[in-house]
């Protein structure tokens, strides 16, 4: 099969109207989801009539019905079913699923093409960031003065929880979703992901999750913040069921996506792309998903136990029945701290990748970059209890956990070294993506240093649960993570959409967001040090100044983000057409034409050197190429007679 075969538009449109599969799309998904949700609700009413936990049983059944129905209606189970009965999908079916010749419609189907999934993820992430950001604006508006009364306590608490959860979920997928799916297969020279159908599944599971998550707002809200601590989650309204079910769905999606991306990177790199020739961004994505893979099941288990508690009256987290809230905290943070690096590593490595391009220099000390990432991944599994220093869980373990936590600052410093070394003597082109690198250097050093304060046990006793912590993790997750994702967006936008991101609005947005960001969270550090607890709907008059500063800064971020949104939409619709390689980068994704054909590469590339050979003498044509390290078949020598 050659690319010509794949792209040849069949004169007779694919004949086999084989099955119902070809008629399914997001519309049928929604219909099936609603039908099954109603059926499940009625069933649950019959089953649990008059039972203590009836509202929870009904809520859970309905949500489960929705998720299963939606996926059924999308056609997610077609593949497994056909496998079961021994009638595997034909080649024509696979091409249909890949979205061949379907135009825009393929974005609304169970489409398996990694580029479609990447774009879908990008839109989903922007929607989630928009939702979470709007909630942040409401929260900050409420906090503009000590007793603004803008929001009631219940609304406020729910908003704080939903803002947190939305943003955490969005930031977890914000780099590995859009760029991991779209760019990584291109970058490693593959035609698609290892498991294209699972790729689609991981995305549509998230779509199924969103209505579940936001139904919490109509089911009494969630009273316990995004961490969902028990036992307050045990006694919460059915909104907590929505939280719980959303996490369960998200965890499945993460497992599927993580396994898929890992397999793709491990087994599908182009011939000759040895581990030393693999771009650093690929390492970052790999580290992120490999870390998430064993971490999220702990969260899933925590929520399943909560499920038993709430729906069946179990006692996992209820002290007078032998349960223990510390169990939840342990399970949660066993996921929760690795998750921070799940967010951070791919964002930082995306910036490393583009820093080399915009400085026109090889990545400084590739080896330290890789070792740092590995060290962070390893250490991050051993630090979870630093979130529980003040919980009284195990005071004797505070010292050891302080040790592991502070050790993480060494490999993190390694990441800084790599970026600074790459900038050193570079020919720095301060386009929007590169500006994001500089912003990250500024923000992440503040986020990192304040992290060291929090790793220190006596200081943590004072600062834990205060606004200081809120400011700290916004500096890492937003100041470094989201900034990195924005840099990645500016960098890969031309390849993903075929158009350049408008420069002036991006510039305006950058300054609004970064200045607003620093104003907001420096103000928050201020009130945190003064002693304002987190998640309070009103506060002591002594914290007024800092909070007002924060709120004004937050509005500035909001406006900046709207400018960026405008820029993305308008550039996407009618921006300048992008050349194949606008930045002069050397990674493989820039070797494919715009728009990218269905299976990416006409001929699979063979890699003979890494992607950072800036300023180095190109290998002379006459010299024989080094033999690719992982080659199965022999590699042809360019320039040799074909």
């Amino acid at each position, binding site marked *: 099969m050659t690319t010509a075969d794949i792209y040849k538009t069949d004169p007779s449109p694919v004949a086999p109207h084989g099955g119902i599969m070809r008629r399914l799309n997001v519309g049928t998904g929604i219909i099936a989801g609603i039908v099954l949700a109603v059926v499940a609700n009625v069933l649950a009413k019959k089953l649990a009539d008059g039972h203590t936990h009836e509202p929870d049983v009904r809520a859970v059944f309905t949500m489960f019905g929705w998720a299963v129905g939606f996926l059924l209606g999308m056609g997610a189970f077609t593949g497994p079913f056909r496998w079961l009965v021994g009638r595997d999908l034909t080649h024509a079916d696979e091409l249909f699923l890949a979205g061949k010749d379907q135009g825009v419609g393929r974005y609304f189907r169970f489409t398996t093409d990694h580029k479609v999934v990447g774009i879908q993820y990008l839109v989903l992430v922007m929607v989630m960031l928009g939702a979470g950001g709007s909630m942040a604006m409401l929260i900050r508006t409420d906090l503009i003065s000590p007793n603004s009364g803008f929001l009631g306590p219940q609304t406020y608490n729910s908003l704080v929880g939903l803002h947190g959860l939305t943003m955490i979920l969005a930031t977890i997928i914000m780099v590995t979703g859009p760029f991991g799916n779209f760019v990584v297969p291109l970058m490693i020279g593959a035609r698609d992901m290892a498991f294209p159908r699972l790729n689609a599944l991981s995305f549509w599971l998230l779509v199924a999750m969103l209505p579940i998550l936001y139904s919490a707002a109509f089911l009494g809200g969630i009273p316990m913040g995004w961490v969902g601590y028990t036992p307050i989650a045990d006694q919460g309204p059915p909104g907590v069921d929505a939280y719980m079910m959303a996490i369960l769905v998200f965890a499945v999606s993460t497992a599927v996506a993580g396994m898929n991306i890992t397999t793709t990177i491990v087994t599908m790199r182009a011939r000759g792309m040895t581990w030393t020739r693999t771009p650093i961004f690929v390492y970052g994505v790999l580290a992120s998903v490999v870390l998430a893979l064993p971490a999220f099941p702990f969260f899933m288990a925590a929520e399943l136990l909560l499920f038993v508690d709430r729906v069946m009256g179990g006692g996992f987290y209820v002290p007078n029945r032998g349960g223990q809230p510390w169990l939840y905290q342990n399970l949660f943070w066993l996921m929760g701290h690795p998750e921070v690096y799940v967010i951070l590593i791919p964002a930082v490595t995306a910036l490393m990748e583009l820093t080399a391009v915009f400085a026109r220099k090889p990545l400084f*000390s590739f080896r330290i970059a890789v070792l740092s990432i590995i060290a962070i991944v390893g250490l991050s599994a051993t630090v979870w209890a630093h979130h529980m220093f003040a919980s009284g869980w195990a005071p004797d373990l505070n010292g050891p956990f302080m040790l592991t936590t502070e050790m993480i600052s060494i490999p993190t410093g390694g990441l800084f070294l790599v970026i600074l070394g790459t*900038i050193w003597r570079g020919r720095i082109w301060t386009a929007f993506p590169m500006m994001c690198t500089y912003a990250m250097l500024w923000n992440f*050093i503040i986020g990192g240093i304040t992290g060291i304060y929090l790793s220190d046990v006596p200081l943590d006793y004072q600062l834990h649960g205060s606004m200081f912590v809120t400011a700290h993790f916004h500096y890492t997750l937003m100041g470094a993570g989201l900034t990195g994702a924005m840099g990645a967006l500016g960098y890969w936008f031309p390849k993903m959409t075929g158009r350049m991101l408008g420069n002036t609005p991006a510039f305006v947005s950058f300054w609004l967001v970064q200045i607003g960001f620093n104003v907001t969270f420096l103000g928050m550090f201020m009130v945190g040090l003064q002693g304002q*607890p987190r998640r309070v709907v009103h506060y002591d008059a002594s914290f007024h100044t800092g909070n007002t500063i924060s709120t004004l800064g937050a509005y500035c971020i909001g406006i900046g983000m709207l400018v960026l949104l405008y820029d993305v939409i308008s550039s996407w619709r009618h921006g300048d057409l992008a050349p194949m390689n606008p930045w002069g980068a050397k990674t493989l994704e820039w070797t494919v034409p715009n728009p990218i054909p269905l299976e990416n590469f006409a001929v699979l590339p063979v890699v003979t050197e890494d992607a950072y050979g800036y*300023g180095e003498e190109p290998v002379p044509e006459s010299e024989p190429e080094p033999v690719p390290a992982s080659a199965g078949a022999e590699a042809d020598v360019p320039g040799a007679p074909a």
Partner: protein
Amino acid sequence: MSVETTPADRQGRSRSEELKTLTILWAIFTVLGVIFALIVPHHLMGPSASNTMTEVERTFTMFSVASAPVAAVVWALAVYSLMRWRRRGAWKEGDPDGPPLRGHGMTSGIWIFLSSALCLFLLIWGLAALSKVDSAAASGATPLEIDVTGQQWVWTFSYPSQGVESDQLVLPVNRPVVFKVTSDDVIHSFWLPEMGIKVDANPGVTTSTSTVPDRLGLYHVRCAELCGLLHADMETNARVVTSDDFDTWIAGQGGHA
């Protein structure tokens, strides 16, 4: 369109000049950072009301001072690179690349060594501070024991040896005090911001924390763990009084000293 000097010229420029400018930038940033570290945190955290808080503020200031040169390195390099090597205008096909610098063993080694050393220093400092904080209440006079109970959304303080229960916290100055904290319903977190102590109030178990209040005055008790609807209102006063006033207060509450 690039008005910059050629790479050969840049090589020619004296390296010591480069390092000099960088060092000056670094020194400026460090000094600014240290000044900031010495003044601002202490000012924001306010005068300390206990030996624990003194230790906390000292550690915070120390860490800030220690991290000022680190942040200064990063910022100096970032600023210098922009001043010195920024390209005017966009990249074009055929522009010369930067020097192919793929690593520098000495730099990396120094970097890793310094960050490890700094990390070790912070760790030792932290452990020392931790043991000081932990042993604070063990020294000196017999500690006053107070049972703290959180419930949605009030704090209750009971003084078992004195037989007093109150929704206000009153502490005698300069006497070690041990708080035994628990909760009746969900998790709360017992926080005395001015005294630098915090511990979660967990239902079903008792946790403890201790300090020595050393400054007379009116302070706050806050809840630092989201505990439901009126979490923001779950605060009360903590009064540090002289030993005599404390006895008077106990007597006034019907207790025995």
